[in-house]
């Protein structure tokens, strides 16, 4: 239905519903697997970077930075103080942990070779010989599946020394996180990869100069790498045409919450939020009330604002963001104060504690929301929330503090009457708790 884009075809998920789709045999036989690698290895690294630049691929981890440009920041021949060449590292950010976001897990379990192939091509493009895949620690099964995929790729000669007779060497190593949302932030991830606390680093120096283990490094998201083989195989034009003027390709959108068919959908970017809810089986248990369009940290939209397109620029214009593609749908049984408190508890728990604005601000906000829910809130609190947020956003080493203010500010601004009512009626007790939709789930897309 309404995939209203004549150029659209699934780039990453054409076969994820087929049996054995995660195996290397399937990938080679049915998806032209590792043909793009063969082609890329015949191209010069700069040509590969150029192809990706022209495709308008933007980082799928959340920030949406142009991928080809990020690759081109890598120094050509870095040397240390003694003039000896330094290694360059490529890092895959697979620390998916933002509430509402669950697309990378699908790639890991259903089409790991697409990501591996993309990573080897990227390694060639930035002339690196080693890549690290940083996986969130809770993914025991996923990490083992990925290790199996890597082993199979070695066995077939797509990894290791002199790949496909090209003279290019590439090694991939898995590294497991240990439960810290902040490690999805690229510099925190690098610290964690070095065996340290996952605390974000000040920038500059940027990872392209001083990254993993002090060496020039490039960090990309799982989905970003998984899009690369298609671009190389079919050419940048085809990929770019599927998207909008400033962002090419498709997006993996994870739809969750009150819809009939939650799951991961690969979609063109010229669909509105309303279209996507429709694709995910429509609303469940009530009318649409609010949507968080890009994972927990994206500001909320009211139902009447959901006619917006889901590409990076349209969502930015609507005062929110495309983020990591996690669309959280809430129906009108939801109490927005309670929903926001659920998110703030998460941020309170996950702040790394390095910057006081974030450490104290996130605790403060969570406590204020709790007080409002418990019946101790005042009208002044509602203005105070905005003040606290103003002192957090943009004032810290990383964007975590901004992420906390996303749900806090947007919910107070857009549903202020609900907050005022709660303050007046003495909290949740006076209003009634959110009625959870706890019946049997309808079969998810994946």
């Amino acid at each position, binding site marked *: 239905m309404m995939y209203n884009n004549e150029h659209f075809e699934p780039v990453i998920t054409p076969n994820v519903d087929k049996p054995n789709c995660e195996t290397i045999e399937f990938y080679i036989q049915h998806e032209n697997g590792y043909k793009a690698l063969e082609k890329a290895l015949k191209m010069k690294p700069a040509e590969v970077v150029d192809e990706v630049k022209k495709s308008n691929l933007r980082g799928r981890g959340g920030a949406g930075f142009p991928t080809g440009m990020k690759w081109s920041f890598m120094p050509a021949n870095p040397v240390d103080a003694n003039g000896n060449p330094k290694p360059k590292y490529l890092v895959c950010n697979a620390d998916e942990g933002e509430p*509402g976001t669950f697309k990378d897990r699908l790639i890991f379990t259903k089409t790991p070779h697409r990501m591996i192939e993309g990573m080897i091509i990227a390694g060639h493009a930035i002339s690196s010989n080693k890549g690290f895949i940083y996986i969130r620690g809770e993914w025991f099964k996923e990490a083992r599946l990925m290790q199996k995929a890597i082993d199979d790729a070695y066995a077939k000669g797509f990894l290791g020394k002199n790949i496909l007779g090209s003279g290019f060497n590439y090694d991939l190593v898995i590294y497991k996180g240990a439960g810290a949302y902040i490690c999805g932030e690229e510099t925190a991830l690098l610290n964690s990869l070095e065996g340290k606390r996952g605390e974000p680093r000040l920038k500059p120096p940027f990872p392209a100069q001083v990254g993993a283990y002090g060496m020039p490094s490039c960090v990309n998201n799982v989905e970003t790498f998984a899009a690369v083989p298609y671009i190389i195989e079919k050419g940048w034009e085809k990929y770019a045409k599927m998207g909008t003027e400033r962002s090419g390709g498709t997006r993996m959108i994870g739809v969750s919450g009150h819809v009939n068919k939650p799951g991961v959908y690969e979609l063109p970017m010229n669909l509105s939020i309303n279209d996507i809810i429709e694709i995910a089986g429509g609303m469940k248990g009530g009318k649409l009330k609010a949507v968080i369009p890009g994972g927990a940290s994206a500001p909320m939209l009211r139902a009447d604002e959901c006619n917006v397109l889901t590409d990076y620029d349209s969502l930015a214009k609507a005062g929110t963001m495309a983020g990591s593609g996690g669309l959280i749908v809430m129906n009108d049984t939801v109490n927005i104060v309670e929903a926001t408190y659920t998110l703030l508890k998460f941020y309170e728990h996950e702040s790394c504690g390095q910057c006081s604005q974030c450490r104290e601000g996130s605790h403060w906000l969570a406590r204020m929301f709790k007080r409002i829910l418990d019946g101790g809130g005042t009208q002044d609190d509602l203005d105070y929330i905005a003040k606290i947020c103003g002192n957090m956003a943009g004032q810290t080493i990383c964007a975590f503090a901004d992420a906390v203010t996303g749900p806090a500010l947007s919910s107070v601004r857009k549903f202020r009457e609900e907050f005022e009512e709660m303050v007046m009626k003495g909290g949740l007790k006076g209003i009634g708790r959110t009625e959870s939709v706890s019946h049997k789930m309808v079969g998810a897309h994946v």
Partner: protein
Amino acid sequence: MALSEKIKNTINGIRHQFPTEQALLLPTLHEVQNEKGWVSMDSMRDIGEFLNLPLSKVREVASFYTMYKLEPQGKVDVQICTNISCWLNGADKLVSCASKKLGIHAGETTADGKFTLSQVECLAACGTAPAMMINEDYHENLTEESLIKILDQAKSDLDAGKVVGKDTRKDGVWP
């Protein structure tokens, strides 16, 4: 005392993959956690000795990440996700259901040391919410009925001496 030979072998086997000794700290902590169920002060001292790191470094890292438990845990670690997508689909009810079933609050361990119940923040399984982890295994699309069934199964497996919730675990292999 000292780390087991198995852990040392595993870590020595991956040593060549990383440019620094400290990079091995997270993997070693994972192995200790897997073998002993938690990371004690003594284990941290042993890890420091093994990796040539001061105890303070080991401790600051071990206490930063939520997966490393600094106190003994139940044999079956039940972690129910209560963040937004799971919450929208009734995770609160699941927590109280599990709490009633096990006779403990979230954050506690049963007196017989068999079960620990906790609430966790996002398992990246929002499309199949509500979700939980039992040791290393995910359980998704939960209902109160399926939750009770899974807990009963875990209990009978445990009583029969089986390993619970480590379906895909291959011993001594990182990851």
